[in-house]
């Protein structure tokens, strides 16, 4: 039986409704939740980049934090030094990251499995520290800037309490939903089908006329575009880019988010992102409850993340997808 899928138009409608609901909800929440919501939206984009690359194209990257750094520095440089408007700074970060991803993708297409993982890991370790070598990138202190407040017309509509964090939430949420829409469409196109075919059986895919290497390069490029967009947003929302803002742990965090979400589930990236943002808060509440010792404060977030990963991998290998309706299976 043919599965009933939403058309691109219906997906756009659904995501628009979701976006409207979230933007309305932001009027009723405090600044902290608005900031966390913006973080969730950025993580959604970053996790989607891993989901697309690993879940659909079968390539493993442990270095997407470095690509986020490229996007972040590109946007920050163009905004703070070249005075690009905010929107163009985002696009510049996206462009630089996509270009880097294309070049990396050519190399990545020749590697697979642990070799690709190792190469991208080295990238995550080395690339952010390059910023230390160039004065224009601000060295260890990085580049510091302020994207300012929401446009005055929007503040007039939303009122006095439309803070910068709520403005961040709006920007990040709208972009994240647009990304989900675009990527869902892409995955439902010939490109998505070709990626899945090449992932499942490269030889069979080649025999079927699919250019596997080109598909891998394209997937790596699109994934890098997403990661750099997330990095650009990340930097602009933070108002700062430094080498320490894109540590190795960031690469691991987005892979963790993808695993928690279920690597092959684009929709799950929202759940993965919420969990990633919620873990520090959960750990903080837990450590307060358990006595707030130095060891607890320092180690609990890592412990909670590790335990969650183990539980998910053991008992929910498809991720923390929430199923209200049981899947129906049909024998054919």
């Amino acid at each position: 039986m043919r599965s009933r899928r939403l058309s691109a138009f219906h997906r756009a409608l659904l995501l628009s409704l979701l976006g409207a609901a979230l933007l309305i909800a932001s009027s009723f929440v405090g600044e902290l939740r608005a900031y966390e919501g913006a973080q969730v939206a950025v993580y959604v984009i970053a996790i989607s980049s891993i989901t697309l690359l690993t879940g659909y194209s079968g390539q493993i990257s442990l270095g997407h934090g470095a690509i986020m750094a490229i996007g972040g520095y590109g946007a920050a440089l163009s905004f703070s030094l070249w005075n690009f408007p905010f929107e163009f700074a985002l696009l510049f970060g996206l462009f630089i990251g996509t270009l880097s991803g294309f070049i990396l993708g050519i190399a990545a297409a020749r590697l697979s499995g642990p070799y690709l993982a190792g190469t991208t890991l080295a990238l995550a370790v080395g690339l952010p520290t390059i910023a230390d070598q160039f004065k224009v990138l601000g060295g260890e202190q990085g580049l510091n800037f302020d994207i300012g407040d929401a446009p005055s017309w929007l503040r007039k509509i939303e009122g006095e309490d439309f803070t910068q964090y709520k403005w961040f939430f709006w920007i990040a949420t709208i972009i994240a939903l647009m990304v989900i829409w675009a990527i869902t469409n892409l995955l439902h196109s010939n490109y998505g089908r070709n990626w899945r075919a090449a992932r499942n059986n490269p030889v069979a895919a080649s025999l079927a006329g699919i250019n596997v290497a080109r598909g891998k390069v394209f997937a790596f490029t699109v994934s890098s575009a997403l990661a750099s967009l997330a990095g650009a947003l990340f930097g602009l929302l933070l108002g700062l880019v430094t080498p320490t803002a894109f540590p190795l742990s960031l690469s691991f965090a987005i892979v963790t988010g993808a695993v928690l979400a279920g690597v092959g589930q684009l929709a799950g990236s929202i759940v993965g992102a919420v969990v990633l943002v919620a873990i520090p808060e959960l750990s903080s509440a837990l450590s307060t409850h358990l006595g707030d010792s130095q060891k607890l404060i320092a180690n609990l977030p890592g412990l909670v993340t590790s335990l969650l990963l183990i539980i998910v991998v053991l008992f929910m290998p498809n991720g923390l997808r929430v199923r209200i309706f049981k899947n129906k299976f049909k024998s054919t």
Partner: protein
Amino acid sequence: MLVHRRTTRGKLAVTLVATAALVINALPAHALNFSKEDGVTQSTITLGITSPLTGAAAPGYNKVPYAMQAYFNYVNDNGGVNGRKIKLIIKDDAYNPVLAKSVTNDLVLQSKVLAIVGSLGTAENEATTRFINDHGVPRLFINTGFSGFANTAKYPTTYTVLPSYVMEAKAMGQYIKENFAGKSVAIIYQDDDFGADALKGFATAGTNFVAKIPYASGSQADPTVVGKWISGLAAAKPDVTIMFGVSSATAAALGGAYKAGFKTQWVLGSVGGDGTTIAAVAGPTAVGLLYGAIGASFLPAPTDTSDPYVAQFQAINTKYNAGVSFDNNVLQGMNTAMLTVEALRAAGAKLTRANLLAAIAKSGSTFASAGFAPLGYSATSHIGYNGYWFGTYGPTGAIKPVGGSYTLYTTDSGTGAVVKTVSKRPAMPEKGLPNN
């Protein structure tokens, strides 16, 4: 063959659940509206600190917040401040500005602290500036010497405790001019704002270098980089070498010079010259490399038990911070906590953020503290101590003042002269409990 059928209803459900998760995540904060007297109740004052408890910068610095907490507990056991007990909420930022921003959000918006005190790091404090300014949160006695924080228009609620790196370099340049006249001088410095501030200060002091060796932060872990420092020094043959970097870089430079047999008179910046931190990052044997070097400080030596502040803080540390060795980090943490208590007392019983800031601007320069240098707080200056004394490291890494007495070199972050003075430190309040 089984075919997994994804229904439209299923997709809608996942989307709705995800939306609900976000909205539910958002809802509890609705009640947490901001008010100006956040962090103050009839019986408590809540403060917050962000500091590295994990990661590369944690060794040594992770002692600071707990030393502050120990001092606050001591004050609480002795009646608190105007009848209120102080609660310090400690958050780990791992020396990462992203985390610093997140945890500062938590402290201000969720824990509703009155003020942030003693937070460490230039980038980490920079990352939260817009938010701190927007909310008018006092950010007191932060642990960075970046001279940019002297800009009171840009950082209206921020007060630093350390002298700026420009001040330190100016004082050091003057000390070298007086004590090593005619000698050749070289410098190894961190190539960022930290080092730029230092070069600015040395230029103002008129220090000329036969070799200037910059290094990228983090590159000190690479032995080939350290090898290049030493070969560069060996070629220039300086009589005096200034090391203006973090503890790991200082340990690497001293170790590299020792292995290469290169001899010079080392003069160490205060950031990288703490023996305990060097021992933590490079092993206990590294402390011996400090022997004979000259260092700078504005606090008494933590080993100087004849100093009343050191003796009092050691006693507090033994009782309230059991098992933690007393060193410069503990001393600095307790000193910062003492300044905080004095600021809270000066703000009066009707404690608000505005009162607190006004009290420091008005009377901060008179606060009693362990520092030998005067405090520069006023309505127009938010920089804390404004000078250094110089000492010599012994074989155990303990630093003792040159000539046996604390001679201060005070100055500003601009082009003002360096003035050599004798410390007129206010006497310690009885039992180390502020009485201002």
